[in-house]
């Protein structure tokens, strides 16, 4: 009797110790999660704080007269004349008319510096779309230069950054502001234009299209190859030293630094097969090499998770092995395979290093329309912008990061959603 009482007190003592250990462990977990979330929060706050400005751009309102003589154009439908047209004269004239007291070459150059040097071409596009405007005058919002944009945004925020502006320019902006002729509006250029040396004209459309083309090719190549390899290895291949060797090497490939794949692509696809540089084809091929191990590994896991009882049932019914795979294993493993593919694609979307090696880091203004057009991709665009000296590229870089992260979040969320949605339970 005494002994059992003794034991009970021992158990009680050890129980408090055990409970404390468990509580401690739970706290470790909570702290770890908090640190992780805090890191993510800091990242997001920093990026959004820096990048939100890029979604707005500064515009200046001017009265533009589409003067045929000034342009030197007789026929709007003649492409040669359009090229020769003096489009820059339109915004310059408008500025001179607005600030009539400006004289002297230097001041005039500063005055013209208020507007983006692409303003003339914007007006050309507008005129071509609306030919009836010829020889009329209209009040229109024109894109401001990036230095003006940076100054105006920082001035609105209360910490004016005027280092790159002359005093006169500051005065002009003040005047425009008082008259309500300068304002911020949605920066559609960011989503509709390709890269540019002028930050206010630079957009991510080219990079997004490049990413899209590259990813489409990557998916088209890596998903069928990866799934076939996974199914063959899991269902058909004999289990011997060779398949073990292959398995080890697939896992090794998954751990190879991505820049090595870039070098491989450079050596094989470009130097040996003479695929053109900088094009989505070669990017897609390199990213396929890189994503294949991921897709094979996740697909194999998905095939493995199909219960053997289903296989037995199919075989027991007289299904051939191929029918068993096609009718039963594949449909059941598909959600897992798709999840793996999406995660692989997300990885490929964020990949920069291998693409640097195959020339997708070039400065490309045109928006790629096919697999053989020179292109760059979003993460490389971020890299390029981060490297640019203009202050206005800081917010562009952050904005591009936000767009990239949005795509990644969408892809990863859809992977989770797909898994939850399609997953079957037995």
């Amino acid at each position: 009797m005494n002994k059992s009482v003794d034991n009970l007190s021992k158990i009680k003592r050890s129980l408090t110790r055990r409970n404390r250990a468990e509580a401690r462990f739970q706290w470790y977990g909570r702290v770890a999660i908090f640190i992780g979330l805090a890191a993510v929060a800091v990242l997001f706050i920093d990026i959004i704080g820096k990048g939100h400005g890029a979604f707005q751009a500064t515009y200046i309102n001017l009265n533009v007269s589409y003067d045929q003589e000034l342009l030197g154009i007789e026929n709007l439908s003649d492409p040669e004349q359009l090229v020769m047209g003096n489009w820059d004269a339109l915004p310059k004239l408008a500025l001179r008319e607005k600030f009539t007291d400006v004289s002297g070459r230097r001041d005039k150059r500063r005055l013209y510096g208020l507007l983006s040097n692409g303003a003339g071409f914007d007006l050309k596009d507008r005129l071509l779309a609306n030919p009836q405007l010829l020889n009329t005058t209209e009040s229109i919002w024109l894109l401001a230069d990036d230095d003006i944009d940076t100054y105006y945004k920082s001035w609105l925020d209360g910490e004016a950054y005027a280092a790159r502006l002359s005093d006169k320019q500051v005065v002009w902006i003040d005047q425009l502001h008082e008259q309500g002729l300068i304002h911020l509006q949605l920066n559609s250029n960011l989503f509709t234009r390709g890269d540019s040396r002028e930050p206010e004209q630079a957009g991510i459309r080219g990079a997004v299209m490049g990413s899209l083309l590259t990813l489409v090719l990557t998916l088209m190549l890596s998903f069928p190859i990866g799934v076939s390899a996974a199914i063959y290895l899991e269902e058909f291949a004999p289990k011997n030293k060779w398949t073990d060797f292959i398995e080890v090497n697939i896992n090794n490939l998954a751990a190879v630094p991505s820049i090595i794949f870039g070098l491989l692509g450079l050596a094989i696809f470009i130097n040996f097969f003479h695929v053109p540089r900088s094009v989505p084809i070669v990017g897609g091929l390199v990213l396929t090499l890189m994503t294949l191990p991921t897709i094979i590994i996740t697909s194999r896991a998905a095939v493995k998770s199909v219960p053997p009882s289903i296989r037995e049932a199919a075989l027991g019914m007289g299904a051939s092995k191929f029918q068993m795979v096609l009718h039963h294993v594949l449909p059941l493993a598909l959600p897992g395979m798709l999840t793996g593919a999406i995660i692989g694609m997300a990885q490929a979307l964020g990949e920069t290093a291998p693409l640097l090696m195959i020339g997708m880091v070039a400065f490309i203004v045109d928006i790629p329309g096919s697999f053989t057009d020179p292109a760059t991709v979003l993460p490389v665009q971020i890299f390029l912008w981060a490297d640019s000296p203009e202050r206005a590229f800081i917010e562009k870089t952050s904005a591009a990061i936000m767009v990239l992260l949005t795509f990644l979040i969408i892809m990863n969320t859809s992977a989770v959603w797909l898994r939850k949605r399609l997953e079957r339970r037995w």
Partner: protein
Amino acid sequence: MSPADTAKPAKAASKPAAKPAVKAASKAKSKPKAKTAAIKTRKAVAPKIKAAQNLDIADHQETVGKSFSDNAKMTMRNINVYYGDKQAIYDVSIDIAKNEVMAMIGPSGCGKSTFLRTLNRMNDTVEGCRVEGDICMDGENLYAPKLDVVELRARVGMVFQKPNPFPKSIYENVAYGPKIHGLADSRVDLDEIVENSLRKASLWEEVKERLHQPGTGLSGGQQQRLCIARAIAVSPEVILMDEPCSALDPIATAKIEELIEELSENFTIAIVTHSMQQAARVSHRTAYFHLGKLIEVNPTEQVFTMPQHQLTEAYITGRFG
């Protein structure tokens, strides 16, 4: 061969008699007046039963009872099965007669499931599994190189231990076999096959309203009957059942057993079971396996009332298993 066999049981039975300790263990219950009558507590008996297991099986060569039939559907001769280096079945010879229900019983790991799975070559899928000996159905060797397992499995259906319907609709489950074998010429044909199969598996009344709902949504017993319906949809000649009721409750079990009895009118059935009562209820003949050897085959009634072999007796009286 079968007439000559009749003399063997006696011989086989007399062999172990040379070892008094073993004999004592197995006879302790039936003949209390033997010289070991004093040993009555379980403690004393247990080690001797162990001895019975270890010694007898090593010596055991011959199957006692009536292994063979004049009206055989399947004939198995000198079957040895190996998993890699490990031998799982030792020299088993047995016939399964037409339209008979053959029960296979024995302690866990005795090889009865392995043996059952050699009958439709399900063991082919197991890595390192090797089958020796002759297995014939209607005189045709099932392990002939030119025989296609797909055809064999259409002729020898199988029902597994755990109900394993495909994660598809009830209809699709039953229609799968006829579809892949091209048995139905039209949709109407297929509908008829599905209905008939479900009727034969006495499931039709319960599921006719929800044929297009997933088969995995049925109860365990219904799922198992669905698997039986699926198996009989391709009109096999033989149905193999591997402990079909081990995952079911008693009511579902009773239904399956009733079904087995009905099915035996049209099919030849080989059933592996852990439940001796079940073997006694549903089967015509019973085969007792022990550590990979076929110990005794006899009409079920005889096995459960007057087993010929002491190991069989030990097993059915619950002394090991």
